[in-house]
């Protein structure tokens, strides 16, 4: 029994990474209902997203209610072009943030955590942006609302 107990105490922590630790900025699409002005979820019908300086993330994705923006861990800002419908003009959103390395676990190593500073955007289709949570440390949180 003592031997078995000993083996339990001897587990190698550096072997296993059992945590998801990508930290993406998650945005929900919102829309003020014309009849009563209540803010409700909305769906963008035909979404194209391009990260500045890289490839297109989505082209013609339909029925999106939210979007996760992957932030660039090598610089302090990331710019996206987002177009919600083929008939409207797209907007540019720039996220400015600070970065810090975070030790996730002995098995997983490090990840980059972000603190959102400001969001700069054009207003062709986007009406406004509300920041809900500036700390971007998980994929699960909702960090901002995009109002259309």
């Amino acid at each position, binding site marked *: 029994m003592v031997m078995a107990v000993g083996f339990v105490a001897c587990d190698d922590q550096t072997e296993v990474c059992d945590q998801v630790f990508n930290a993406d900025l998650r945005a929900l699409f919102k829309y003020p209902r014309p009849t009563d002005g209540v803010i409700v979820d909305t769906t963008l019908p035909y979404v194209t997203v391009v990260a500045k300086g890289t490839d297109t993330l989505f082209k013609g994705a339909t029925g999106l209610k939210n979007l996760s923006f992957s932030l660039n861990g090598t610089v302090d800002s990331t710019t996206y072009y987002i177009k919600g419908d083929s008939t409207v003009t797209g907007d540019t959103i720039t996220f400015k943030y600070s970065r810090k390395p975070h*030790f996730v676990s*002995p098995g997983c190593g490090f990840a*980059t955590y972000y603190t959102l500073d400001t969001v700069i955007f054009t207003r062709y289709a986007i009406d406004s942006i509300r920041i809900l949570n500036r700390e971007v440390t998980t994929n699960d949180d909702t960090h901002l609302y995009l109002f259309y």
Partner: protein
Amino acid sequence: MMTRIFTCFISFLLCTGLAFGQDSTEVKLKHDTLTVTQQVSAGLRIGLDISRFAYLYFQPYRTDVTLMADARLNKNLYVAGEFGYNRTSHSDSNYTYKGNGAFVALGIDYNVLKKQTSKQRNILYVGARYGVALFNYEIPEYHIYDEYWGNSSGSVPKQSDNAQWIELVVGLKAEVFRNFFLGWSLRQRFLTTKRIPEGDFPPLVIPGFGPGNKKSVFDFNYSISYQIPLYNVKIPVFSAKAKPKKGH
């Protein structure tokens, strides 16, 4: 020179063993009370925790050496402690880690084994310790992989830290040859110092405590030890009060 020191040390052990290894019985009658006590050889028991060497197999990044010592104070009470050294070195595709440090844990053990003669020195004990570790650690390099934006790298400079904990122990030590003991113990440790602040990174190993990212840790030990007989302890073996005679 080393041979001479070793010879002197062995001679010292043998001489002290002869001097204090003689048990004797003492009978006292005081105030109508008969007390029988026995002088039992005691001393400083020094041991090596051989379970630490198993860590080299299960956790290859750890190198631990732990020495254990205890000394009998009376029939059931022992002052006990452990001290040791840890070196941690780990490297994989995510990061490289280097750390080292030392610790000391002091406390008491209480023998709960009742059914044995006064000459038997096996103990089944419960005990407690307070431990302190001083250590330093660093991350010479780490890598964060991102297929989309590109990888990033960095390092975290060497930092010194300390940790303190409370430890509960249960175990036994059996005398397999005269003055030679084998034993094992189970230990639960509770960190009393504050946790590592968010954003910093905890040590991979706190010397003497265990994983640096946990608040409480379960551990076990196997020990081999030798008791250097240095003194005798009086053990009461019998006590009775004389009954007054009726009619007087």
